[in-house]
């Protein structure tokens, strides 16, 4: 790890101000991606702005048809929250499947969303639930938020404050974890709302995406047989030593079927 300046501001305004004053700053939330990559010297920010002392960034609440989760809320808090269980229990499942207990006790939803790892779990939930990312200066819809692998619509110094998930009739998340890292090799978040079905897939491609073929088929016939003839574009899939594109394309359908089976 290279030397860096450490800051611990007590307000969002101070954090943003510090960010702008620094050469190459990064916000620090749970640090479970940032710190390991700094330790192996892949990242070398000049300044780390720790958000831990800013009041009001964490917490889970239900407000006007949305489940709102503060950016600094730890994965474990989401996994075990009764508020989440009543509102969108699929998010309990999703958060409870991130990493291991140590990771869940440190990692935060805001950090995960801002990092936008193509194999992370939360991006699938955001996209399928039509969530809104609330930052210190605006609201960004999930559809516009992800702009590529590890890329988002966030400005350099922009800070996520919370994520608002609209309540839905039913949702679930199923993932096939990479056996080594336990990140999603394929993760399928499925939502049913009115006559609409939304399916977001993470881990399989260069970024999270909606599978419109599945959505259309399931909207017409919400059963496994509707998925029988769905074929994902193999060329759009990731192909690496952990799984071929062909296998990932296949797993997308299998995971979607498993997700489907969890709707009562």
């Amino acid at each position, binding site marked *: *790890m*290279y*030397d860096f300046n450490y800051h611990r501001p007590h307000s969002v305004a101070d954090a943003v101000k510090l960010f702008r004053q620094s050469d190459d700053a990064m916000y620090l939330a749970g640090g479970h991606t940032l710190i390991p990559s700094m330790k*192996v010297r892949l990242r070398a920010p000049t300044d780390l702005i720790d958000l831990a002392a800013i009041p009001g960034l964490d917490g889970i609440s239900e407000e006007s048809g949305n489940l709102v989760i503060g950016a600094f809320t730890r994965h474990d808090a989401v996994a075990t929250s009764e508020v989440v269980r009543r509102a969108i229990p699929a998010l309990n499942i999703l958060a409870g499947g991130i990493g291991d207990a140590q990771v869940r006790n440190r990692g935060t939803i805001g950090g995960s969303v801002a990092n936008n790892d193509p194999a992370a779990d939360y991006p699938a939930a955001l996209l399928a639930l039509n969530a809104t990312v609330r930052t210190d200066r605006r609201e960004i819809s999930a559809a516009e938020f992800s702009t590529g692998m590890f890329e988002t619509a966030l400005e350099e110094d922009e800070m996520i404050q919370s994520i608002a998930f609209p309540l839905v009739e039913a949702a679930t998340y199923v993932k*096939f974890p990479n*056996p*080594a*890292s336990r*990140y999603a090799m394929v993760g399928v978040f499925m939502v049913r709302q009115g006559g609409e079905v939304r399916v977001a897939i993470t881990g399989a491609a260069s970024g999270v995406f909606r599978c419109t073929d599945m959505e259309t088929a399931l909207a017409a016939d919400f059963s496994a047989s509707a998925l029988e003839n769905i074929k994902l574009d193999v060329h759009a899939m990731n192909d690496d*030593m*952990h*799984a*071929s594109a062909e*296998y990932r394309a*296949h*797993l997308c359908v*299998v995971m979607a*079927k498993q997700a489907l089976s969890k709707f009562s």
Partner: protein
Amino acid sequence: MVQQSIGESVLRKEDQRFITGRGRYTDDINLRGQAYAAFVRAPMAHAHIRKIDVSAAMAAAEVISVLTGEQVAEDGLGALPCGWMVHSKDGSEMKQPAHPVLAATRVNYAGEPIAIVVANTLKAARNAAELVEIEYEEIDAVIDPRLARTSPAIHEDAPANTSYNWELGDKSATLAAIESAAHVTRISLVNNRLIPNAIEPRAAVADFNPGTDELTLYTTSQNPHLVRLIFSAFVQLAPEHKIRIIAPDVGGGFGSKIFVYSEETALSWASMKLGIPIKWTAERSESFLADAHGRDHVTEAALGLDAEGKFVGLHVSTIANVGAYLSTFASSVPTYLYGTLLAGQYKTPNIYVEVDAVFTNSAPVDAYRGAGRPEATFLLERIVETAARELNIDPVELRRRNFIQPADFPYQTPVALEYDIGDYEASLSRALEIADYAGFPARKQASIALGRKRGIGFSCYIEACGLAPSQVAGSLGAGVGLWESGEVRVNPTGNVTVLTGSHSHGQGHETTFAQLVASKFGISVDDVDVVHGDTGKMDFGMGTYGSRSLAVGGSALSSASDKVIAKGKKIAAHLMKGDADEIDFDDGEFRLRESNQSKTFQEIAFAAYVPHDYPLEELEPGLTEKAFYDPKNFTYPAGTHICEVEIDPETGIVDIVKFTAVDDFGTIINPMIVEGQVHGGIAQGIGQALLEQCRYDEAGQLQTGSYMDYCMPRADDLPSFDVDVTSTPCTHNPVGAKGCGEAGAIGSPPAVINAITDAIGIMDIEMPATSERVWQAIRQAEGR
């Protein structure tokens, strides 16, 4: 008095300090004025070094020195040796290209150390390491062992990238037997390359005292005396009596901490050169790159069977990847620890094996838990299983037809070993009972009804442990003796300090050896402490590997204890006015036969050190005895592993629903510790079978350099194991023990693969049988 005897699961004495954070590992050691080292490593797998410029690094803040291979050469240090000479078919010696302490003119694997940077702080050392400027001229790398022999030579003195082509057995008789066999089964397989991953990375603190010319090295070693021997006799760092190696608490080794590596050697040399203590602790990424890897075989084999299904001949051709250099024991692993095991539990009359050991631009490959024996067992148990399927004979029945029978012992195999004892039917039938083989067809039907596939796989393994009779090892090329030393010091108050040349890095010697000695003397385990891992404290020893510690080290302690008892009898005879041969010693009491007189062990100890009433003319005071035990033969643990899997055909995920291991380890001192060893070994074996694969890309970059990409088995990957034992005590050592450390890793991989292929109804699948490989195999089998 609490007496814990042999065969009781005494809780581990060492665990109190381990689970309360009071263990003392190498990285816990900090010396006054200690500096820190960082290594500059090759960023590519194969290149000429054209220029090394250390000036910027030298000028950096807090930097004390930057040393390179040029200074190593100036100081006349020797290369790192390989301690086992193997001869090729034509009688020529193996090619052993110089393994430099620091690469000076050429790098041969990614991660090879080139320079050592010493600074006042760890951060300064690491920062300065980035300032060392090196000009490289890259050369094409060869990684695949199958391509090594036809690729340009990595080392000038090893044409065709071959260290040796070795053979064992009667080639023409074997070929003739296979030629005339009623049926021949042929297989090709890869034994996948593994990275050891002990939980504690390698670490060292070198402390040279210019006032006494003594070098003390604290290091993560399985065999500290061997480090001292190599440092003095081969590297020529310092005379042996001026070197002290201390291996304190060590967090796992699995073989990877047997070897003498560049880093610890360069660190010691730098400490001597600079006159200061220096510490180095490997980062996990350095462990991945530069610890010796394991396995990495490519093999073709043919097994001939007669009309009754009896094996008539086995022919094996293997290419073994040894990496860029021959590591400390690399040459022995794919030869004498592999080819000699190919008889397994079977009476195959003709066996021939040939092995080409090839260099590639990858990290050195050496012994890793099982070392050669897992490779032999995997091959044999895969080919036997395949033959059974080809001939439509129950795989259990085929094995039984070929077992060496109890009446056949001692049994001379066609591949050099003489098995002393075993009962293979006993462990097989017990395993079948626990695994409920009879109920398998019903369970398979139940799985099919759920749309799942179920399979069962067997592995009847044997290993040669208790390394090793020195004369035999010497005649086969070993550069060292393989006895063990033990010392039993009875203190004046009657408690005991035991010193052993073997080393515990997780095996529980402090408990097992204490139990062994305590039961000899009829005293409490709490009254016996075991000291190990310090060349300054105990006699020369050979360390721990090859499941040798109890069979060899324990036997030395048994002999030393017998000497204590013999001397105690003389003292007791004097005190009770009898004759030494009229004294019986039992349950902690020396009794004069046909009298009511007796003396306790403690009374005799006290008398030995306070010799006021003592036969000083005939007997020296004191009650300390030592023994060097050289084994008469290898020991032959054996057993049966049965794996039952259920597979989800949609995903290819393999669920191990039942794993049974029945092992014959001979006499067992502490069943709980043995069971723990078996569990750990099976976990590693399942890791190899399902999850672990070291991968380099074509340019020689390590692709699996962290836990994000290298998949270690975790608790939730594993079932609860059903473990039991049968016993035929070793006939030639006083303990009757055979060794248990490696059996799990040896027996389990073929059981898992046999189960998976059985479930899918195919002949072969490559390790690791990942979910994708299984899914593809199912699709292929079903013609999709």
